[in-house]
């Protein structure tokens, strides 16, 4: 007879086996957070009730945004605390294992790869950059057209004006990305977030992530300030969030299962 409730192991991320840092007190579902030694690397994990977080819970909630949002936030909170003290490879959800032995097995089987990834990302953090179009270039309100021909001419002009403005915006966005990428070890431009995701009505023009060395953060922020000054006159605003664990920069090579079709 089972008297203990069934549990699963939820892993947050992978840190160096010799790293020194404080474990966060609280993880997913208010569970404690623990460290699993797998030699060159260690896994940060929580033990969670199978009924709430196991396979059947995932099957039930995989499209339940509220459930996922809560889990994602709690998962990230642990990683966000870790990354302040040490290098960490963040795991994508769902990161669920039968027990500690199972997690140990998968960590140990690719420990060399994880160790190399940690070393290559040493002292680098991710910063997120969003550009939003918040304003329109000002256009004078025209007087009532004197004729149909006049009306058509103005419409043509307006269309041309809009198109030129769009081309100029695109050019400035590309330049902004390039100037921030210059100060980053790696950069990636992801698809702009939909308004449903960003929660903002303004069109997002750029959604980029930048891998920046801790000691270059100041330079990066200065470049952000300069970029903001260049973009403001055309109605574009810039938002920066971070530091993030290097979510966007942890590709592990072609033989990794993720890259299989």
């Amino acid at each position, binding site marked *: 007879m089972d008297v203990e409730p069934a549990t699963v192991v939820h892993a947050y991320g992978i840190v160096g086996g010799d790293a020194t840092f404080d474990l966060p007190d609280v993880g997913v579902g208010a569970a404690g957070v623990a460290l699993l030694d797998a030699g060159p690397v260690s896994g940060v994990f929580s033990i969670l009730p199978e009924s709430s977080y196991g396979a059947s819970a995932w099957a039930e909630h995989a499209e339940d*945004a*509220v459930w996922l*949002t809560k889990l994602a936030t709690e998962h990230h909170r642990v990683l966000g605390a870790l990354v302040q003290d040490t290098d960490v490879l963040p795991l994508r959800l769902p990161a669920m294992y039968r027990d500690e032995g199972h997690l140990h097995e998968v960590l140990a089987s690719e420990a060399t790869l994880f160790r190399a990834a940690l070393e290559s990302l040493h002292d680098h953090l991710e910063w997120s950059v969003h550009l939003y179009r918040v304003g329109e270039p000002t256009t004078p309100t025209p007087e009532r057209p004197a004729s149909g021909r006049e009306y058509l001419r103005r419409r043509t002009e307006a269309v041309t004006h809009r198109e030129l403005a769009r081309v100029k915006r695109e050019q400035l966005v590309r330049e902004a990305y390039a100037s921030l990428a210059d100060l980053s070890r790696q950069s990636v431009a992801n698809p702009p977030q939909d308004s*449903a995701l960003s929660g903002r*009505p303004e069109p997002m023009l750029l959604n980029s992530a930048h891998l920046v060395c801790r000691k270059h953060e100041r330079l990066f922020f200065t470049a952000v*300030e300069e970029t903001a000054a260049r973009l403001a006159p055309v109605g574009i605003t810039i938002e920066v969030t971070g530091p993030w664990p290097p979510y966007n920069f942890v590709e592990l090579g072609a033989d990794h299962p993720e890259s299989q079709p």
Partner: protein
Amino acid sequence: MTTNTPQGPVFTDNRQPAPQNLADVLERVLDKGIVVVGDIQVRLLDIELLTIKIRLMVASVDRAREMGISWWESDPFVSGVEESEDSGTAALERRVRELEDKLDGSRSRDGR
């Protein structure tokens, strides 16, 4: 949104105990980061579809507030598509259909 003079850059420091940018969290935690084969291989919906669905299905704003989630409360949704005159809900529903079609297409290619 009639202003033509945006403020300077907005910095959100994750080291402060301020609310995280939830869109950034979801995008990363569900779509980035490393995959270390575990017990559960959930093929998550396209994250965009998922989050649009959230907006459509959140019946109780209070529940969201209790959880500290407020990012869909921003004012009446306006389509992100430039010059669009769609109403927010219609645009969302159309987008969901497009994404679902796309998803069905990729599922059938997977042989499911």
